[in-house]
């Protein structure tokens, strides 16, 4: 212990470690009425770290070659000690990440934290949402199973509806007329080399923006003395008299992370096949489309939307419009009120939107 303190003193003398700890941890004050939902960002960082770690481990044995990819994944699952664990953590984790991402979005949506001055936080967060969907989509192809192959065929094919450039775009995404070995090469590169780095960078930007603006005060419970943000000059939002991040809120973060792990590991150990349809266990065959090919659950609403509109272009445009609307929400919904019950129109639209999304997903699942 004395030795640790001496090492810490030595470092402190050179870089002022105690000052950083005081400023960023023990003296970093959060609003007294902060709630559990604010810990989801930390949970997401842990999930991302775990995805990177398990991804690196999978890369030790995975072979990104159309002839060998399926075999190498089967080898990891069936022959390597604990290979199933690493692979399932990665596959289940990617789904969990999307789920927690949706919860994180919903919480900032309901508490109105996307409003001025936090528009950039919302926009960077929305970018992360799109990037995580992209990394999931590209990763889905890598096992080179019938499920991978045909889900990717359908997904890339939807770009066909875009006027003029559509057909070329599809070919560009696939690296050929059809999904095939060139698709695997580019999806692999995007999945392991491009998107992880971009996502890490955007997470950095997201946190930077958060640090510069200051964390929002939840619109519920005992409010601090209200000092509305004013768009005339920059000011960091302080929370005088608040609770310290460390140890108080760090403990909440840790609790949420533990709850997350309980759910995550329950799926890994007890419902490992929830994610896999029988087509996931058959190697890709370019000449045989399986009967019921469906995308992952979080794309089911998009899938169903494309199906119900007679024109693909219409279906695609509606999705693009909905995504753009969500991305730009802070610039559309500009009232300063943040309490959901005091925003009945917003609340009605939000609940309607969520129900619509759930409805479309369920419909997509059973159609």
């Amino acid at each position: 212990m004395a030795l640790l303190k001496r090492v810490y003193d030595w470092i402190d003398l050179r870089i002022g470690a105690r000052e950083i700890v005081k400023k960023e941890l023990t003296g970093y004050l959060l609003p007294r009425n902060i709630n559990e939902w604010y810990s989801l960002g930390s949970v997401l960082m842990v999930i991302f770290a775990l995805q990177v770690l398990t991804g690196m481990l999978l890369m030790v044995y995975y072979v990104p070659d159309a002839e060998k990819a399926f075999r190498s994944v089967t080898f990891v699952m069936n022959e390597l000690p604990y290979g199933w664990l690493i692979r399932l953590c990665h596959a289940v984790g990617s789904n969990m990440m999307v789920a927690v991402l949706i919860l994180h979005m919903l919480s900032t949506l309901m508490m109105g934290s996307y409003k001025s001055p936090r528009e950039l936080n919302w926009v960077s967060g929305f970018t992360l949402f799109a990037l995580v969907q992209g990394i999931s989509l590209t990763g889905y192809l890598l096992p080179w199973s019938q499920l991978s192959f045909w889900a990717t065929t359908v997904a890339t094919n939807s770009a066909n509806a875009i006027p003029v450039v559509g057909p070329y775009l599809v070919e560009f995404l696939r690296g050929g007329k059809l999904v095939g070995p060139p698709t695997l090469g580019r999806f692999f590169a995007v999945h392991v080399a491009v998107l992880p780095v971009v996502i890490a960078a955007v997470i950095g930007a997201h946190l930077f923006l958060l640090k510069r603006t200051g964390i929002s005060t939840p619109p519920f419970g005992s409010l601090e003395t209200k000092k509305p943000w004013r768009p005339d000059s920059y000011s960091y939002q302080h929370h005088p008299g608040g609770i310290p991040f460390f140890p108080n809120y760090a403990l909440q973060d840790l609790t949420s992370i533990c709850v997350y792990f309980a759910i995550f590991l329950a799926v890994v150990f007890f419902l490992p096949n929830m994610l896999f349809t029988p087509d996931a266990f058959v190697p890709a065959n370019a000449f045989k489309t399986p009967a019921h090919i469906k995308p992952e659950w979080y794309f089911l609403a998009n899938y169903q939307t494309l199906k119900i509109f007679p024109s693909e272009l219409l279906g695609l445009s509606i999705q693009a419009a909905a995504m753009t609307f969500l991305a730009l929400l802070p610039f559309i919904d500009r009232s300063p009120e943040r309490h959901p019950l005091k925003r009945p129109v917003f609340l009605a639209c939000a609940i309607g939107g969520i129900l619509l999304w759930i409805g479309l997903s369920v419909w997509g699942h059973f159609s």
Partner: protein
Amino acid sequence: MENDGRRKFLGVCLAGATTVAVAAAAYPVLQYLAPRSGAQGADKLVFATTDIPEGEAKFFEYAGAAAVLVKTKSGNIAALSAVCTHLGCIVQWEKDKQDFICPCHGGLYSAEGAVTGGPPPKPLAKIPVSVAEGKITVG
């Protein structure tokens, strides 16, 4: 004081739980990364005597490492490890000189594996070999 005691107790519990969790995560990862035992190839190999002409050498994998079978001009057959005893490069057969040379630092070995020059400290390891009815059995 009482508060301090509780804080310490909880701290120890947390550290203990963290240690257990880290160990529980590290064990499968180490197992996953460990080299695969049993994937080292056969421990007995059979060649036809016609496989190697006199004065030539045949390189092959034996128990996961490089090995060589030589038939000298006098008809003598030997099976040797092909791993140089200096720093582990693979030795090469020089047909004209009927010896092994290591390309890394110029180690020289006779056709029987004995050191005849250069830095190698030990002869090439011998592998049991037997010849019967036109078959050479290594191992």
